[in-house]
């Protein structure tokens, strides 16, 4: 396959950045999108040109590092992460536009790499059960219904890639935050702090500069782990309960 690539290049956080055009040949349909990027980088290095920076690590869809906007769609044309997008989903001779995530709370650091530390800070605000090592009771002493355990796991699968934010016209992080709030809120272990948690995490989310949710579900459509927007409704309910009734009734 021969491809025309239009790739965002930006030297550093303060650089203005621009698109750069590259044409590459010899791409095999079974290659992953990142392996295609490797081919380009190997070529650039051999020409003594600076390689294109992009986040990637596990290359099997679980670490959540990779983060490319491909032809205007977060992670590209198929559902899944960028690393699990395969060239067989593109046409020979196609032009592909590759950009970083675009969101105020995800500043671009270099080329296709963005700063997602705002996600870490939201989790630091309350995305945990306050339990120290040492005093945990026997694992089976806290029964969890299979329905709730499965639902909690559906939410907990979030890989924190940020595609939901990138896809949202408001750059909202509601799906990400809702996944964490949902995961812990559905389990008895997380219940004691549930009301506080949702308030703290939402307020940190707002402070980080993420937009609000206007129910377009673009986030759900691109989420590589298929996390349901129902968790956003659940979080809204929890938030309302926690703010309108600050004390449990």
């Amino acid at each position, binding site marked *: 396959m021969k491809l025309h690539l239009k790739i965002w290049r930006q030297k550093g956080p303060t650089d203005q950045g621009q698109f750069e055009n590259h044409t590459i040949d010899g791409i095999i349909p079974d290659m992953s999108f990142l392996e295609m990027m*490797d081919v380009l980088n190997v070529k650039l290095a051999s020409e003594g040109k600076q390689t294109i920076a992009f986040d990637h690590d596990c290359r099997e869809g679980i670490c959540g590092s990779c983060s490319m906007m491909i032809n205007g769609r977060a992670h590209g044309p198929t559902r899944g992460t960028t690393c699990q997008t395969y060239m067989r989903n593109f046409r020979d001779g196609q032009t592909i536009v590759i950009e970083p995530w675009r969101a105020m709370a995800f500043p671009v650091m270099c080329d296709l790499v963005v700063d997602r530390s705002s996600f870490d800070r939201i989790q630091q605000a309350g995305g945990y059960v306050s339990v120290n090592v040492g005093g945990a009771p026997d694992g089976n002493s806290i029964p969890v219904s299979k329905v709730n*355990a499965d639902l909690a*796991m559906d939410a907990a699968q979030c890989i924190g890639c940020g595609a939901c934010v990138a896809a949202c016209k408001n750059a909202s992080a509601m799906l990400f935050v809702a996944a964490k709030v949902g995961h812990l809120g559905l389990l008895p272990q997380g219940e004691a702090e549930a009301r506080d948690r949702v308030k703290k995490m939402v307020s940190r989310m707002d402070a980080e500069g993420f937009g609000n949710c206007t129910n377009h579900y673009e986030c759900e459509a691109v989420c590589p782990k298929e996390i349901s927007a129902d968790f956003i409704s659940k979080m809204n309910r929890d938030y309302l309960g926690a703010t309108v009734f600050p004390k449990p009734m």
Partner: protein
Amino acid sequence: MKLDPRVPAGPLAEKWDRCKMEMKLVNPANKRKYHVIVVGTGLAGGACAASLAELGYQVSTFCYQDSPRRAHSIEAQGGINAAKNYRNDGDSVERLFLDTIKGGDYRARESNVYRLAQNSVNIIDQCVAQGVPFAREYGGQLDNRSFGGAQVSRTFYCRGQTGQQLLLGAYSSLNRQIEQGNVKSHPRHEMMDLVVVDGKAKGIIVRDSVTGQIERHSADAVVLASGGYGTVYFLSTNAMGCNVSATFRAYKRGALFANPCYTQIHPTCIPVNGDYQSKLTLMSESLRNDGRIWVPQKPGDNRPPASIPESERDYYLERKYPSYGNLAPRDISSRAAKEACDQGKGVGQTGRGVYLDFADAIGRLGQRTIAERYGNLFDMYAHITGENPYQSPMRIYPAVHYVMGGLWVDYRLMSNIPGLFVLGEANFSDHGANRLGASALMQGLADGYFTAPYTITDYLAGVKPGSSDVKATEFAQAESDVSQRLKKLQDVKGKHSSQAFHRELGKLVWEYCGMARTKEGLTKALGLIPELRERFWKEVSVPGSGAGMNQGLENAARVADFLEFAEVMCTDAITREESCGAHFREEYQTEEGEAQRNDAEYSFVSAWEYAGEGKAPIWNKEPLNPEFVKPSVRSYK
């Protein structure tokens, strides 16, 4: 060098309790005066950093990823072992200990393994309390599955993403401590060197991969939890960024590297497809609970799998190892797959593959149950290969997955450099010559939550807090070494990317130090590696500047270390003149082709000591002296 493993005296079951009683404590008010550096934020590092901070120490964490949550532990799929005996199937701490010792082909330190089995029980409790969403049964109790090398069901799991969920648990505890100001997290920082002052580990040199700045960080103790070196083979199931640099730099500063030749080849991975490939994807061992492995009986039989009748299939694991069948340990299953392919019975285009077939299980349990157990793995397989594993069997082949070797540590997980602790895959301690499935997560968390917090406290109790200063000459020297090394890489200005050299090195070590090794092959490798290294330093191209983000430079620095480390690995492999676990020397095998240990001469840990540039490393030995389990022929028949 005389190696003192500091194993407490007394009966096996009492050693850890005795050790805990013997170790010193630090007064709660004094704990905050101590500063500990933790490199790596996976299960071992994340758990250790959170636990130390909970105790009251000041902790700094460093990871090369953009968030502690992305450490390679996140990729572990199948599960975590614990001797809970919730199944009532005869499990116990003793049995988990015995399985692990036997699984490691009697090349692990008994006392460490026993402590691991003891701590396994607490790990599950801790993780449940953190909110890890383990699989449950309808009654609300924790569910279990089976893994290789065991005849009990002791593996706890979160669908096919157990590593992810356990890591997110540790990450959440870490986050709580970051919020409270007890942990300072440094993501996108890569450790470039260890600083040793007066023989003690006192700090590290890191490169900030955003600004390119080289920084000095001092501490009262340094913990390396930087993972394994499987990417020395280039193609592996490890994340692309996994590297040997942190441990190898510590080696060059005097820490001993133990058993580097023990590298685990995992039997169930998606086969290599082409030269462009950057990564091999694991299909969890848990699949062997329900999948059956087979090849056609006739070599060269290239009919589609559905048209090969039952009578013309060879379910070779079930045939050769009837009592463990498809759940034979990893090293044995991998070699059996290689053997079948060497005989020409391999399947798929390249002939390097075997079938993992779920037809029976789907017939027995229905597609829905199989999807519930392994849905994400089946999806992943379909994504990558474009084939539907519900309809036709998966094709799998062994791939590099984990390394049992690592920095040498004593019973208290401290290396021979006082103040340098090594946890998780980065150390050598618990898995001997072969690791059983679902044991890496167990070890990482046992080290981080339940062992290191005690042993590090004991060490700190004997150290004056805050005595390490980044202005010391040792820091300046180490910093200048790092800067010079990076500059040297950039000054080569050759024509080839570091990835090209990495691929070449990977092929070389896979060929000569992979699933089967010979003296002849290893001798050849030991000649070829220095040649490749020389070419690297003449021809590598690292464009861009040292300031700011430069992923090409990061990679080149890692590859440069691999090119040196590979030689230590092959040296270890050539000097271990026996077969044990994952280390299979073709010269030493039984008539049936099984690994043949030589307990009389090789029941020891090889610990390699850096002897200086261009010199062969010094071979130190820690005798294993098994006291409690008599090594026997490891039979899974």
